[in-house]
C-alpha cells in the first residue's frame, strides 16, 4: 500500500534544473511554461495525484526548493 504525498515547490527558489523531474519514479513533476521572476522555468506538479511521498525530489534538489508532505 503506497503512501500518498504532496511536494510543494517554491517557484522563486527553483532554478528549473529539473533534476527532480528526472528522479521522480512516478513522473509527478515537469517544467512550467511560465517563468519565475528570475527568468527560470521552474518545476511544477503536472500529475500530483501520483505522488508517493518517496522524497526523491527533495533529495536531489540543489536549491532545497521542495518541501514534501505526507497525506
Amino acid at each position, binding site marked *: 500500500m503506497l503512501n500518498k504525498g504532496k511536494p510543494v515547490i517554491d517557484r522563486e*527558489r527553483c532554478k528549473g*534544473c529539473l533534476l527532480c523531474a528526472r528522479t521522480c519514479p512516478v513522473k509527478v513533476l515537469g517544467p512550467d511554461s511560465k517563468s519565475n521572476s528570475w527568468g527560470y522555468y521552474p518545476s511544477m506538479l503536472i500529475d500530483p495525484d501520483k505522488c508517493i511521498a518517496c522524497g526523491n525530489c527533495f533529495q536531489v*534538489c540543489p536549491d532545497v526548493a521542495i518541501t*514534501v508532505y505526507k497525506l
Partner: protein
Amino acid sequence: MELLYGHPKSLKPIQTKYCPGCGHGVIHRLIAEVIDEMGLQTKAIITNPVGCSIWAELYFDFDSVQPPHGRTPAAATGIKRVLPDHLVICYQGDGDLAAIGTAEAIHAANRGEKFTTIFVNNAIYGMTGGQMAPTTLVGQYATTSPRGRDPVGEGQGYPIKVCELFSSLEGARYLARGSVDTPVNIKKTKKMIRTAFEAQMRGEGFTLVEILSQCPTNWKLSPHDSIDWLQKNMIPFYPLGEIKNTLAPVAGPAVAAK
C-alpha cells in the same frame, strides 16, 4: 498533512548563486541536516575558500572564515587547535585541495587534525570558467586541455584519486567518497558526513568526505545530462564507499577491563 522533508534550520532559506543543477546545493543541505540532527549549529564554523564555495558563508547560518586559496586546511588547523570543542568544516574544491593546497591538505591529514574536510570533486575548475583540474579525467575537455586531457603527449598528468592518495597517512582516519547523483547515493553521502562529524566531536581526526558532484555549466551539459555524465565517467574511475576507516570502534555497552 505531515511534514516529511523540509528545509534544514542551519541553512538560510535564500536563493543561492550556484548554477541550476549544481551539486554544491545538495552538499550544503546534507551538511546542514547533519548539523541540525547533532544540535551543533552554535558550535559550527566553516572555512570556505576561493572556488564556487566562496559563497557558502552566505547560506550557512553559522560562523565562517574565508582563507586564501588552498590554505583552507591551515586556517582550519588554527581554528580547531584553539577551539577544540567546535565543529570545524574545511570545505574545498578540486583546485583548493588537489592543486594549490595539496601540501596543506596532506600535512593536516598527516597530523591527524581533528576537523572534517568536505572535498567537492567535480573534475573541473568551476568558478574560473572550466579549466583543467587535477581531478579532470583523461580525454575530458577543459579550457586548458582543449584537445582533451592528454597525460603523456601534452604532459598534463593523470587525474588524482584524493582518498586513495591520502590513505597511506596514518593520521588520516576516515576517508570516504560519496556522490550526489541519485537519492540513494545522496543518502549514503549524508551517512558519511555524519560518521565524519561524529568522529570529530569524539576527538578523532583526520576525516575527509570526497563528494562527486556535477558541474553542468562547465561540463557544457544540461543538469539532466550532467548526471548521466557523472554516472558514466566519474563513478567508474572514482570508486564510491569508505576508502579508509580506522576510526576507533564506537563504545558499545560494557568494555572488558584489561
